[in-house]
């Protein structure tokens, strides 16, 4: 029997409790257990991806009950890709964050690692599950851990940001729960496949199904911070401790986009979403507004970290808009962008973490001379920035390419225009940063500028290696973009 889908989720779960217990013996044990657990889940995820590519959808029935009665894990090529992505990023970030966690939360590092693993469990579980209510429980685990870890950041402000996030996050999760309730009362089932089969027999004009759809999608949008609902995101991510911001920024919103895609395709069916309802145009406009608003709010920031959080808001617009274009190209672009955006954001936040580690502050006025003192970090940052802008060899270009093609096919020229404008704005943003880093001289303690004898103060190797790996992955995902789309995404969409 193939237990890999279960091990994938269970490894970090039991790892979390073992690290909690091991910390009473020796605090550093908890870190090594966390490392081993995330590595194991990464290996399991890769095995599952292999199985899915070889034999199609993998199912795992929890407690041995057949699907509508019990809970099943159901992994097809879409989840498998996201699962590998999550576990890889979680592992790499754990490698990178040992030094910064020691500095930021020295007295409670073991508890941090326990929480971290539970967060990873939540994300993996959300992605792997095939049950609507199980999805809710796992979203709550993810949210609860992220509220806590965000509150571990800067004293005072991070607590307010976390409280704000709790109120909005609970509204989002409760909307999702209500939506599931409406689905349950009309279909009598909770399994995604089963619900989809029963929904086909219910007339599309049913107001209960429409309400269920709107509530579920609204809940997920709140959780993923689509533009008017994004108010919690910038503060929460900007004041969180670096070790956590680096994993939550690339993964949380992307997993929620995955949930949205899953609800649209598997549960309600694209036919219902695009042909019965007439919401697609409005949502594409929402995406356009999100892209433009995110990009322009990023322009007014004077802190690198805040600027990156608004770029996340902007990127969410790409994926939501692309998924709602109503054609295969747009959907493929949105799904490819989940992968690419996670990689790019992770690289950006890794570089940001290295700069924070060395310089403490990342306001634009603190960034002078970074190219000279931290060349490797800046190389990674430049590559990630090029990818965000969408320069060809990097992966960011290809997902934008699919999105633009999809927009033209759907006749949504405003969406294509928004994509191009936001690329230009991102270019302006990053070149502004690079200009400060490259040209503005370092102010020394004597008050005059010192041009000679710059000392390299690069981040530790444990933080550079993950950045290097992710940078390679960005280029590799760009080079193999066609293969990914043809072998993983298109078979799923057909």
């Amino acid at each position: 029997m193939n237990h890999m889908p279960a091990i994938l989720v269970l490894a970090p779960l039991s790892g979390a409790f073992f690290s909690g217990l091991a910390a009473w013996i020796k605090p550093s044990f908890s870190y090594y257990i966390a490392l081993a657990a995330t590595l194991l889940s990464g290996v399991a995820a890769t095995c599952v991806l292999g199985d899915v590519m070889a034999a199609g959808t993998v199912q795992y029935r929890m407690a041995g009950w057949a699907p509508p009665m019990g809970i099943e894990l159901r992994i097809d090529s879409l989840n498998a890709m996201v699962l590998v992505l999550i576990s890889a990023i979680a592992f790499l970030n754990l490698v990178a964050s040992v030094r910064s966690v020691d500095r930021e939360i020295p007295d409670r590092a073991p508890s941090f690692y326990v929480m971290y693993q539970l967060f990873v469990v939540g994300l993996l579980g959300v992605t792997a599950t095939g049950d609507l209510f199980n999805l809710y429980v796992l979203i709550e685990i993810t949210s609860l851990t992220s509220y806590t870890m965000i509150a571990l950041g800067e004293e005072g402000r991070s607590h307010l940001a976390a409280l704000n996030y709790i109120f909005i996050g609970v509204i989002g999760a409760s909307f999702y729960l209500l939506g599931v309730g409406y689905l349950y009362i009309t279909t009598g089932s909770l399994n995604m496949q089963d619900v989809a089969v029963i929904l086909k027999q219910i007339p599309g004009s049913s107001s209960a199904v429409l309400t269920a759809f709107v509530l579920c999608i609204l809940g997920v949008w709140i959780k993923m911070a689509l533009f008017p609902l994004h108010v919690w995101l910038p503060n929460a991510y900007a004041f969180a401790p670096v070790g956590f911001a680096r994993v939550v920024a690339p993964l949380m919103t992307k997993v929620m986009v995955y949930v949205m895609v899953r609800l649209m395709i598997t549960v309600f069916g694209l036919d219902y979403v695009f042909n019965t309802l007439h919401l697609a145009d409005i949502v594409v406009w929402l995406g356009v507004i999100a892209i433009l608003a995110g990009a322009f709010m990023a322009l007014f920031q004077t802190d690198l970290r805040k600027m990156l959080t608004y770029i996340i808001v902007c990127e969410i617009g790409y994926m939501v808009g692309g998924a709602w274009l109503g054609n295969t190209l747009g959907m493929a672009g949105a799904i490819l962008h989940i992968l690419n955006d996670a990689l790019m954001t992770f690289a950006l936040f890794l570089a940001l973490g290295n700069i924070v580690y060395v310089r403490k502050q990342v306001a634009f006025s603190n960034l002078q001379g970074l190219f000279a003192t931290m060349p490797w970090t800046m190389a990674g940052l430049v590559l990630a920035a090029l990818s965000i802008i969408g320069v060809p060899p990097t992966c960011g270009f290809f997902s934008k390419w699919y999105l633009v093609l999809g927009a033209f096919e759907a006749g949504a020229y405003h969406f294509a225009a928004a994509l191009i404008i936001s690329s230009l704005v991102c270019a302006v943003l990053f070149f502004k940063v690079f200009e400060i880093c490259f040209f503005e001289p370092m102010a020394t303690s004597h008050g005059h500028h010192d041009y000679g004898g710059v000392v390299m103060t690069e981040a530790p190797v444990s933080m550079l290696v993950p950045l290097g790996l992710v940078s390679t992955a960005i280029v590799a995902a760009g080079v193999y973009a066609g293969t990914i789309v043809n072998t993983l995404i298109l078979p799923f969409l057909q």
Partner: protein
Amino acid sequence: MKFLGFVIVCLTGGLLLYGTMDLPDWGDPASPASTHLSDYYIEHILEETRVPNLVTAVLADYRGYDTMFETAVVFCAGLACFLLLRDFRPKKDRYFRHIPTGVMLHVKNPEIRIIPGNEFEHMDREWVPSDRIIKTVCRILIPFIQIYALYVVAHGDFSPGGGFQGGVIFGSSLILMAISYNLKTLMKRVTEKFLSIFAATGVLIYVGLGVLAMIMGGRFLDYGMLAPLVPWDPGHIRALGMLGVEIGVGIAVMAVMVIIYVNIVSEGRHDEGL
């Protein structure tokens, strides 16, 4: 903000009202929700699991995977309270009573260390002489509450109740002790290490039973596969598996409830409470 809130609330309420139009009538036995899965559960659970309480059976067996994460959520909440509030710094102002003379000391210098023992007793800042009636009544009551909690855990298969309710009741008996005596009395009996190890162990019992089923050749949490381990009563193996799981849940919930209370009421210092 008030106006915006009102508009949002009205919009949501309107949407939900619109959604109720097509719902089946309340209590309609023929509605999809009461026929599809529900019928299967009601007709087959007793035969398949030998547990008469359908809610417990679905909770701990059919949807046991959910319940495992629910326990993990509880654990998470306890850990969160520890992470956010626990304060290891010694307090600046401390109060002691010299027992032979009854004189109160207010110590402001953190350097001075007074070890409470036969001569000195640690006092709370807002100390009120505790009431003998309350103390005595609680002293008599607490063991009965705890026995009842154990009954609720153990009898969850046959009557309302289960690990979660029992754990909460057990935890609240300990909280009652902290309120009627004082926080230090509780923390002397159940230390922080004890509580945190209990919280993690409780969930590990749950996960461990599931993994044991995997080792015995079944799926995760498939208690039926544990039958060879209890040769004297293999027929009730699913009920026994559920009981084991419920005990794990109870332990974890008990510990976490106390952790949350202690950390909130003492602002993480674990010295004085309500």
